[in-house]
């Protein structure tokens, strides 16, 4: 459901009154994409919820499949443990009913047998429990590892457009908080869950065998248990889904505001941030509270049913003993078994709770995994034609817009022969960066095709495309690690000499050598903080090392001082000679090194030619050029 972005009076307008309630609901603003807060698979409609549940179940199946054999072993161990544990009360019964009389008669045989059986059972239980717990943890941790890798890998595959609307904080929430709640179940729940389920079944079986009428009375509790559990499952699924969403908002706000802490402090944003945090935090608190209150009803509910059953069994069983229809020992065993039955049931309710929380989390992850990358790798990739000096780029009637109603490019035609350096200039919003992003395949065109050496980018394997095309932007992210590692990001196999050569070529060697640990300086560690210009230099060295066929520079030198920029340009001049380059720059000094200049406006090419010609032709470029010349002194 997309509402028309027409600025009608229903659009909430920012207000300056500090009307907290309203204000806090409004601070986030309206997303341009209605699906901004979730993956597309998540929807409030009941069918979508059901579909997602099915997906997450299928996901769980996929995750468990490789561990089928180990799971089988685990179940066997569990059965052994359970059988051993269950034999306890039965042995007590045997002891009371069968051993006392012979012992009175001086025969210790039955008692010795019972004692031996008891010892065997205890040791079996010990061994089986220990092995089972270890094995269960192995399976659980392997599943977690697999799930972590899948979700992370999928996030990497998803297109830039997805990440722009989903926000990094939410991605962090999925990969930390949601996985934590699944880990919590793996750590401390699954065995109790299975043990409890097994207890229920085996106790029911033993009871039936011991005394049928008494067991029938006991089994009357089952429908109530079932009904109560179904209610809880339904109610808590919704409640936990809400907690997952609420905690994601807490994380988004936390991560973003601390990342921008300089702006926060410089603008005294702290009090308002605190209020917003209090609001999302409280929202999370209430969501959790709702979930916990459900279990505060469920758990004593189970207790009521259990205790009622005990009272009924006591009365009815006692009555049957009175009538001589059953033994005292049977009644005792019955009551003991009931304890074994409802005691884990109690804990089960607790773990059922983590199960519900984990299920909600798994649904969120399934939603992410279900998201198809808008920019997908081809099924059968085409290779680029071999041979040196390639890199011909063509845009064939390319249309594109970030939103369907606001096209940026329409029917763009552009051919760049291999080896040419093209400068793109034009006002903000003209579509320069869009062309760069389409060529780097951050997005796919809505219509038309972008080709490299005659191959549609959509048919190229990602690895091959990235080897051939590199985009350097003004946001130069440095990953934690050393300066050398960050440069080597351009070509992972490169040796130290190649890294240093790249840095030297770009003029970054001097400042890197002056860092506390030179190339080994950690970029995010104390003292390693680089200025924007230095980061740009590192990014350039990285691109230089990558040595692509096509190099795209989007405002990549904006933070450099003039001499450094010159140095970079000279280096670029030499590396660009034998490769295709697309340069977006606001400073015409950069443009001057181009073979060809394209002036863009409103998504169209309005001027096209060598810089000198355009400067002389008296068009827009000529105007800009003279303006810029005037600005220099």
């Amino acid at each position, binding site marked *: 459901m997309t509402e028309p972005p027409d600025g009608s009076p229903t659009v909430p307008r920012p207000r300056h009154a500090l009307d907290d309630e309203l204000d806090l609901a409004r*601070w986030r603003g309206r997303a341009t994409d209605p699906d901004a807060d979730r993956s597309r698979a998540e929807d409030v409609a009941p069918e979508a919820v059901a579909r997602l549940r099915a997906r997450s179940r299928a996901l769980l199946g996929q995750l468990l499949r490789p561990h089928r054999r180990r799971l089988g072993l685990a179940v066997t161990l569990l059965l052994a443990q359970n059988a051993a544990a269950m034999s306890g009360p039965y042995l007590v019964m045997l002891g009371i009913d069968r051993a006392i009389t012979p012992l009175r008669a001086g025969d210790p045989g039955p008692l010795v047998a019972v004692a031996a059986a008891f010892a065997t059972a205890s040791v079996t239980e010990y061994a089986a429990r220990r092995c089972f717990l270890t094995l269960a943890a192995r399976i659980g941790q392997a599943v977690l590892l697999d799930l972590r890798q899948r979700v992370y890998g999928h996030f990497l595959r998803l297109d830039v457009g997805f990440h722009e609307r989903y926000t990094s904080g939410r991605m962090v929430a999925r990969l930390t908080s949601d996985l934590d709640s699944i880990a919590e179940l793996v750590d401390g729940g699954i065995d109790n869950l299975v043990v409890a389920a097994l207890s229920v079944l085996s106790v029911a079986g033993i009871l039936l065998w011991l005394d049928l009428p008494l067991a029938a009375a006991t089994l009357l509790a089952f429908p109530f248990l079932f009904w109560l559990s179904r209610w809880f499952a339904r109610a808590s699924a919704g409640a936990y889904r809400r907690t997952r969403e609420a905690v994601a908002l807490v994380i988004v706000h936390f991560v973003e505001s601390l990342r921008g802490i300089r702006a926060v402090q410089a603008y005294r944003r702290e009090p308002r941030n605190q209020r917003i945090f209090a609001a999302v935090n409280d929202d999370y608190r209430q969501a959790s509270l709702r979930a916990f209150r459900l279990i505060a009803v469920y758990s004593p509910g189970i207790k009521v049913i259990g205790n009622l059953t005990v009272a009924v069994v006591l009365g009815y069983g006692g009555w049957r003993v009175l009538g001589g229809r059953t033994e005292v020992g049977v009644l005792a065993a019955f009551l003991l078994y009931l304890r074994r039955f409802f005691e884990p049931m109690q804990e089960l309710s607790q773990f059922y709770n983590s199960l519900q929380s984990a299920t909600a989390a798994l649904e969120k992850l399934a939603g992410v995994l279900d998201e198809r990358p808008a920019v997908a790798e081809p099924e059968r990739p085409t290779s680029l034609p071999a041979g040196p000096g390639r890199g011909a780029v063509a845009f064939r009637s390319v249309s594109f817009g970030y939103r369907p109603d606001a096209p940026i490019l329409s029917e763009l035609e552009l051919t760049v022969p291999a080896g040419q350096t093209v400068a793109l200039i034009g006002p903000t919003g003209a579509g320069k960066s869009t062309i760069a992003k389409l060529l780097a395949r951050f997005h796919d065109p809505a219509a038309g095709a972008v080709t490299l050496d005659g191959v549609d980018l959509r048919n190229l394997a990602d690895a091959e495309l990235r080897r051939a095309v590199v985009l350097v932007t003004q946001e130069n992210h440095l990953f934690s690690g050393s300066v050398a590692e960050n440069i080597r990001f351009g070509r992972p196999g490169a040796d130290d000499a190649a890294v240093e050569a790249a840095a030297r070529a770009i003029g970054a060697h001097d400042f890197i050598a002056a860092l506390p640990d030179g190339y080994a300086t950690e970029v995010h560690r104390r003292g390693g903080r680089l200025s924007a210009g230095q980061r740009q230099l590192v990014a350039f060295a990285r691109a230089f090392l990558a040595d692509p066929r096509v190099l795209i520079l989007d405002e990549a030198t904006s933070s450099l001082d003039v001499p450094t920029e010159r140095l970079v340009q000279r280096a670029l001049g030499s590396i660009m000679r034998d490769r295709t380059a697309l340069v977006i720059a606001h400073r015409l000094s950069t443009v001057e090194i181009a073979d060809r200049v394209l002036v863009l406006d409103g998504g169209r090419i309005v001027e096209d030619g060598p810089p000198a010609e355009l400067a002389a032709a008296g068009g827009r470029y000529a105007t800009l050029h003279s303006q810029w010349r005037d600005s220099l002194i």
Partner: protein
Amino acid sequence: MPAQSDGDPAARDGAGRHPLRNLWRLRPYLRPYAVEFAWLLVAALAATAASLAVPLVVQRVVDGPVAGHDAAGLFRLGLLALLLGLAEAVLIFIRRWTQSSSSVGMEAAIRADIYAHLQRLPAGFHDRWQSGQLLSRITSDLSVIRRFLSFGLLFLILNLVTYLAVVVLLVRLHPALGLLVAASAVPLFLISRRFARHYHAASRRMQDQQGDVATLVEETAQGLRTMRAYGRGPELAARFTGGARALHDTGIAKARLLARTSALLDLVPNLTLGVVLVAGTAAAARGALSIGELVAFVSLQLMLIWPVQSLGWIIANGQEAATAADRIQEVLDTRPTIVDAPHARTLDRAQVRGRVRFEGVSFHYPGCAPVLREVDLTVEPGETLALVGATGCGKSTLLSLVPRLHDVTGGRITLDGHDLRDLRLASLRRLVGVAFEEPTLFSMSVWENLTLGRPAAGEEEVRAALALAQAEFAYDLPWGLATRAGEQGLSLSGGQRQRLALARAVLGRPALLVLDDPLSALDVHTEALVEAALRRVLRDTTALLVVHRPSTVALADRVALLDNGRIVAVGTHSELLATVPAYRAVLSAGPVERHDGAGLVRS
């Protein structure tokens, strides 16, 4: 001083301290719920008492009505068991209901306090701490503590009480066997203590690794475009797998410890039960114990199995909570170094003339070589001073000292003669408008992004600021100023983001403008328009600009050349151009050997 107290994630103290000390220090958060906690403890104990009474009723049933064929007595006792059972359930309900609000309340309170504290900590702290480590503290660590305060702690108390009560009952039923059961506490204690020690270290390792993974994830999210531009997905995935595998291994190590201990904790009561069974049967055979007593004894003893079995889980939970508390206190114990001095005063916008002086200012990041050395510089009221210098010479650092994002490590900065450290932070920062080299936008509405520091700004003020920064495009966004701007600026271009950041800086006419390369991402045409508008603002505002281009230098009345942390020349642009070769080299031309003084446009 700041180097030590700024909190270094690498340096952890606490060696030799009691492992539960930091958990104990969180008790103020429990205080608002003290009454509730007392009530729920009472309810929990009463519930335990009710559940303990049931086997005693069973004993009466077996020894009384069953033995004596008394049907009426049987149903009386049956009714008693029923009432006890219902009472237990109601008490459990009360306990859980009360507990749910107090535990999530505590969790939220601690989280809000950590956030508040983190906002007070200076930029230097945030430079050093990985944000994922902070994040895992307010999510995973807090929920561990919540679980401990709401379940672990309670069950620890309950189980101890249950254990003692059961043992007392057992001793009364049969002193010798009762004491035998009591003696089983000794191996249990030894097992638990050993487990606690080992688990402590594993739990801390796990939490730190969780933080590392969170950091990796966050970094990936931020560097996503770079990753994509180079197609380095596989490398990042391998790196992530390393982190995830470390978690996996620690998880298994923890589980092994827990498996061994919890199996042992199962074995001890079972063996005790076996001994009791044999001895009890023998006693019953001798007639020293009634059969009813034996049944009651055994069923009471079975009540010990769960408390003992859960001991492993409770200890694990307690250790995790203890290490989580350590991690949280590491953050809360870091004192904010940039705070209001006790005598700090407020300056009114109207009182401020705007004379800024750097007096012998030095600055170095902790443990590093100095960035600024003995900088002396004066910006007169209303004057615009441009800072020029080679990449990485300390210009941005110098600017960050003005709103006190960092504090000088030597000398002082004054505003109208007041040392900045004598002003209230809020007052100082209200007077200073800042735009950073990287425009930081948050994923909230454009309006909210603009009025970051001035929530009370009116529509007219915002409109004026947007006009000045040539950022009226904001009105054309799909929902106008109510449109959510993404953290990385949605699909806004670098220039658009920079203009929004500039609008934010000039909004509300600050007394002092600090702009770090504010026009770097603008195209020539827009730059000219912004420059013209900025010039009007700068006429009566004191301003400190970092610039890289000759065109922007034109905005400044004077220029200071920064080289290697020192001011080497101050003067007007043309003076410096004429007299200082280094200035000419930095601002205007290519490599010196090719320099011919005028040719700026060359390939």
